[in-house]
């Protein structure tokens, strides 16, 4: 059961998440502000945009260019470490993962 952290406008939210759920679901369960997940996790609304702490990028990996990246690109402030939290499936390897929620997301 990995513990992950979200930081939104300077406030940290530590979230304990069961294996196999997505970072978006973990955020919703814990009420992290700025993560809406309007589409229910289908990579179809881009309201769960996060920046993965660069140190964690090798573990988390990049967005799929054909699907997720097109949705990420609907947002402002897209960076190389941008991901949609609904497409990040949590594993034990991700214990301690740090995800930054963009200020502009609401």
């Amino acid at each position, binding site marked *: 059961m990995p513990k992950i952290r979200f930081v939104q406008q300077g406030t940290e939210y530590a979230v304990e998440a069961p294996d196999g759920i997505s970072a978006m679901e973990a955020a919703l369960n814990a009420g992290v502000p700025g993560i*809406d997940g*309007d*589409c*229910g996790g*289908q*990579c*179809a*609304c*881009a*309201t769960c945009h996060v920046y993965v702490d660069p140190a964690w990028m090798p573990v988390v990996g990049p967005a799929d260019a054909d699907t997720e990246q*097109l*949705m990420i*690109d*609907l947002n*402002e402030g897209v960076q190389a470490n941008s991901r949609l939290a609904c497409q990040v499936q949590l594993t034990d390897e991700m214990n301690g993962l740090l995800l930054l929620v963009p200020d*502009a*997301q*609401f």
Partner: protein
Amino acid sequence: MDSSATTMVDPQSIPIDQIDVSDPKLYQEDAHWPLFERLRREDPVHYCADSAYGAYWSVTRYEDIVAVDSNHKIFSAHHAVMLDDGRHSGQTEDATVMLPFLAMDPPEHDKQRKIVTPAMSPANIAKLEATIRRRVQEVLDMLPIGAEFDWVPTVSIELTAQMLATLVNYPLKDRHQLVRWSDVSVGIPGDGVIDSWEQRDQELKLFAQTFLALREERRAAPPTSDLISLLAHSPEAQDMSIQDYISNVILLIVGGNDTTRNSMSGSILALHDHPEEWAKLNANPALIESMVPEIIRFQTPLIYMGRRATQDVELGGKLIRKGDKVAMWYISGNRDSEAIEHADRFIIDRPRPRQHLSFGFGIHRCVGNRLAEMQLRILWEEILKKGWKRIEVTGPVRRAYSNNIRGIVSLPVRIHA
């Protein structure tokens, strides 16, 4: 307020293969509900072999609509967002061709959408809040108390017209011209807006001339954040054809006008029809936040969006052939009880209220969704400050003759102070 259709066939006994939900009259009479209920239950991916727009598939369940909407490779938007694709791709020599980015596929779609995205950014929208609130207050202050009036022109059209003029930086005094063009661009002969396609084309030509001149004016001036300035100055927009430019202006004007207007009117009707929700809201104004997306779900301002299959594909056990037209009926998916609990009821404190189809999903998701929500939020914050006992719907609701825009044309009301 129930305006059940008398001219329609019996929705329960009509053979299922004869159901055609594309008839605009169904929506004018608010008579589509039982047909969609039956389709969701008996034939959720439904083939209509013969309609005014030719053959088409109907996708009626929430989950199937999300699947189609988020699969832009197999379900192309190119010249396919309207069932009446002949008209919109210019079947007649003088037809006004519409090809906004909404009706494009990547990569051109992405390029054009990105030009206007900055105008809808949270930071830019926040700048509009004070202006919107002031105008809402001015409009509400003028309303008669205790006397009947029509909510649609007095409040809904007035507020969205002002918003529209602001977004494109158009003279405020001429705002109703924008509303006219918006109405005309989605008009169909016989809807009370236009009498013929020729009339529509002529009015849209004047629109095109006006906005081409405005683009030249903006190009000569320093860049600002209004939509026309963005289209005039963006490096990506320099090689945009006249047709693309005009199509996109129309898209933004319709997108920012009809939809919010009808959600504003729809919210008054929904709260009239659900007095227990009005009571909840008055007891706890913080519920505005979850009520706003519920208003947008319940109204479903866009009845459907169209697509065209780029290859043979199976959906819900049916084989959709390459080239077939597909309509995603948001109006139906938003009332799908398999996906949304008590979907037929207006409930202002639903959990996960933003889980609805009204903005679409995938790469064509509404670019102005947060602006729309903000306008509705401010309207309701200001209405509640008035402390009115209720807003009563006093006369028959008149609805638009359209299978595309779920429009409320007239809504007589009386405010009880």
